[in-house]
């Protein structure tokens, strides 16, 4: 019987070597270990053994069963592993095929840059305010020290609704409204749409966007204006950008300045981008005219302030090298999806 058991063991193990499928493995398991299997058949004859032999053979039989079970399970994992391998190989993909398109919405490029600028000024302690686009002559001009029939009105061709109501030509009226409503300290920017009767072409649009800023407090100086705008220009154009302040005239600021950044294309030598000047004008600014403070009920002997403003479209055009302003308002998907 002992020999029979050893034979079964050897046979089973030999049989295992030659198989390749899970079904064959199961066949072997049933043949040797099943209820009607060979090992069970032998164990059934145990009753005929002597009491000395029984434990020895029993032990051997259990050992052989464990050994066969072990071999089967080993074979089983081998088969599974190679099966998985095969399956994975058969599932291989062409990774160079295109991905499935996910539809993403795009920010308008003007919003993209405006949001960036808003973040910068929020970080510098400026709140964001807005005001009406259809404005009174008073807020758009008179309160800004531009009386009726003042030549400064020529530079801002205005759309009128009635004699006293117009489409704002600048976001400055928001500054007046802010000063009327809020006591200093004031630190705000007012981005928004403005209107001038310029025919639409590659560099002009009757609707465009401005971002203006206003600071009013005790002891605000022109040096503060310079520091603030230099910080902004460096954030926008890079730490190594060179900024200059050039005297100019705006009726609502005194002294007034235009702010130039050294042309990042030619570094001041003069090129087509900066029209040979070496500098690119980016901002208008100045100390709020004491008259304007008085008009808004702020005592100019106690408070001073500065204001600045810039056009958004030109800035965005330079940023993305867009050569035609009309693209902003045509909203072609092929354009929008680039941002």
């Amino acid at each position, binding site marked *: 019987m002992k020999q029979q058991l050893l034979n079964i063991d050897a046979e089973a193990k030999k049989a295992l070597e030659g198989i390749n499928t899970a079904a064959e493995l199961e066949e072997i398991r049933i043949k040797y270990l099943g209820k009607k299997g060979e090992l069970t058949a032998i164990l059934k004859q145990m009753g005929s053994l002597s009491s000395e032999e029984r434990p020895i053979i029993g032990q051997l039989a259990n050992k052989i069963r464990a050994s066969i079970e072990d071999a089967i399970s080993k074979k089983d994992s081998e088969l599974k592993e190679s099966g998985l391998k095969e399956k994975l190989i058969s599932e291989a993909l062409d990774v160079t095929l295109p991905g499935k398109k996910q539809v993403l919405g795009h920010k308008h490029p003007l919003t993209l840059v405006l949001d960036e600028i808003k973040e910068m000024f929020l970080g510098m302690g*400026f709140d964001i305010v807005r005001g009406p686009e259809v404005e009174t002559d008073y807020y758009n001009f008179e309160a800004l020290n531009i009386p009726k029939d003042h030549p400064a009105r020529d530079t801002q061709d205005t759309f009128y609704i009635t004699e006293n109501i117009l489409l704002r030509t600048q976001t400055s009226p928001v500054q007046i409204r802010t000063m009327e409503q809020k006591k200093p300290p004031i630190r705000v920017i007012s981005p928004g749409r403005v209107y001038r009767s310029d025919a639409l072409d590659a560099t002009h649009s009757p609707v465009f966007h401005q971002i203006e800023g206003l600071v009013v407090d005790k002891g605000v100086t022109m040096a503060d204006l310079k*520091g603030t705008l230099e910080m902004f220009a460096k954030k926008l154009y890079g730490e190594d950008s060179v900024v200059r302040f050039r005297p100019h005239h705006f009726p609502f600021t005194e002294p007034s300045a235009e702010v130039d950044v050294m042309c990042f294309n030619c570094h001041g030598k003069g090129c087509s981008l900066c029209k040979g000047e070496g500098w690119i004008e980016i901002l208008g600014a100045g100390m709020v005219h004491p008259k304007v403070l008085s008009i808004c009920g702020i005592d100019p002997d106690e408070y001073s302030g500065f204001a600045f403003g810039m056009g958004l479209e030109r800035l965005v055009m330079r940023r993305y090298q867009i050569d035609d302003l009309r693209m902003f308002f045509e909203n072609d998907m092929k354009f929008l999806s680039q941002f």
Partner: protein
Amino acid sequence: MKLSVKWLNDYVSIKPDNRQFSEALTMSGSKVEGFEIEGEEITNVVVGKILKIEKHPDADKLVVCQVDVNKGEPIQIVTGATNVFEGALVPVALDGSTLPQGIKIKKGKLRGVESCGMLCSIKELGVTLGDFPYAIEDGIFIIEEDCQIGEDIHSAIGIDDTVFDFEITSNRPDCLSVLGLSREVAATYNLPLNIKYPEVKGCGGDINELLKVEILNSELCPRYSAKIVKNVKVGPSPRWLRERLRSSGVRPINNLVDITNFVMLEYGQPMHAFDLRYINGGKISVRNAVKGESITTLDGIERPLSEEMLVIADEKAPVAVAGVMGGEFSGIMEDTNTVVFESAVFLGSSVRKTAKKLGMRTEASARFEKDLDRQNTLPALLRACELVEMLGAGEVVDGIIDVDYTDKTPKKIHLDCNFINRFLGISLTDAEIISYLERAGFKVEGEDVIVPSFRTDIEHKADLSEEVARFYGYNNIPSTTIRGIAKASLSDRQKFDKKVHETMRACGLSEIMTYSFVSPKIFDKLCVPENSPLRNPIVISNPLGEDTGIMRTTSLASMLDTVSRNYNNRNLNVSLYEIASIYINKGEDTLPDEKDILTLGMYGANVDFYVLKGVIEALLEKLNIKGASFKTVSDDSMYHPGRCAALVINGEQIGVFGEVHPTVLGNFEIDTKVYAATICMDALFSLEDNDIKYKPLPKYPAVSRDLALICDTSVTSGEIEEIIKASAPKIIESVSLFDIYQGKQIAEGKKSLAYNISMRALDRTLTTEEADNAVNKILKNLEKSNIVLR
């Protein structure tokens, strides 16, 4: 404003380096826009004298000239011109010379005869008949100037000036003059300014016997000065004067006209010259026009005048529109004998209004409207007379008329050095501040700063601080950070706006920006009913064109225009949104209501009504707005009557959406289905709920039941869902539609809708019995509305 370096040197001795000069003047406040070096492109062109002219052996139309250019042997040049003669002085472009427009001249052979250069016409030198009235246009320039043989052409004919072009801001009309800019140059470089008061000899007589002047409106004309010149000799001006005018871009006409233009450019004071013959009664009245009056101006156009316009009139009629343009017969004519020079000041705003109303802005009006120096009339007038005598253009009658209502007390501003330092953020000594002010032309007397009369823009100590800053240098002012701490954050509304933007983009929509003004035709294009309040927009009184004539009362047209452009540009799948204002008319002289509207527009293969609705639902979910219901809208003319819904929250309609009406789409030239929505941002903002509280995750399982129902096709899913939810509100967690069927297997006029109903109790596991009871109740309630189990 153009400034010739030659002219500048009459007042300031300076040889500027062009770039450095541009930079310096720009940084002291007079922005240089560019400069032009006259004759820059001309090289190697000299004065030559034609010694001998012979016929060309092989060409009838050519001649061979021997020209002395003071370089040893004469050179041989072949020309086709017919106006040359032996002994003539001519411009000779030598071998290897260059001319304007990049023309290069090289030695060569013309019909076999060697030609060592070219004789030039005035055009080839880039000058005009105005500059050299004695020359001819088609022929060689026969030089009549005082020059040397072999002399470089630049100096020989005076094309050796450099002209700077300045941008002058509207507050500095004084800088619209050579004198004004010379002052700025002197101040910038701290150089002396050599101004000589004009001297007039006179020829006797008395102006008062020839002319009377009265001002009837001294507010609009505070000063009127005049001189008379008799026995005038009209003729061309000398070269130096013509050169000055040319450098300023003014065409020379004749000596008297040129003198008035010269003085305007030099002193910034517009002048007018009247022929005394045409001043009826020898009396000038400066008065308002009378109703019904008109004038034919110098340009031959008859212009009706209105009563607020100021005119210069003789006894009978207006002879000039004050400060704008003279009348037809007021100018200088060939037979003019006696001339009245007018040098006056008019109120800027009045000139501006008049010029605008008459539609004629002239060089004079552009200056007057900026309010000129009221003390400049006499110096300018005398300068003109000085030039008359210098040019021998006539005899200046003694005496002067000067009707003067101006206040001659100089403006004084208290000198507050502390303020200036504080305002600018610098610390200069009082002496430094005073020296900068004096450089700029101010006088300081004790504690007062005396403002020169030409600085009409200076009124306040802030103005003085700008003067100090200009010459101290803006870029020498330090850069400091604002004191005090300021905290800033987005307002609730701004955060809300941002969230809406983000949600739209997350849903795959791209942002657009469109114009706020539209064409009034959009109402017809959108099929808006005649009586709709939308048709009462704010109208722009001076639009660029009809297409941009009104402020939009609906944002849909702008969206559809954009969709149409995309569709016609063959973009296949397009989903867009815009957040922008519409403008609701609140009546004349009242500002409109500006309402922000969220506008959606989409088309393409994967888009339908329910995709659009899904976007709106996603937005409501993101904003945590509950209780939205969607009501069928069948009477909105912009939308498909069967595919349009109103977004209703708490009984209030806050938006409309659906498939755009095919007629409207046709009007916008769109040949595909477009889904659009307009939603009021203010309403969304007021409904937004940011008060989010965590709810524990459910501990007990949900019971799920599916119901397939049959109802009339007119019944909406919304109604069914409402009935289901109301039947067991405590335990129904969600109701979701998963199938719709309409067809052969059910009766005509009926449809089948299948729902999954999820039920859950928060405190226990729901029993089967409870769930069954709920379903029974649902079915019972549905039955009341003729909705039955399939």
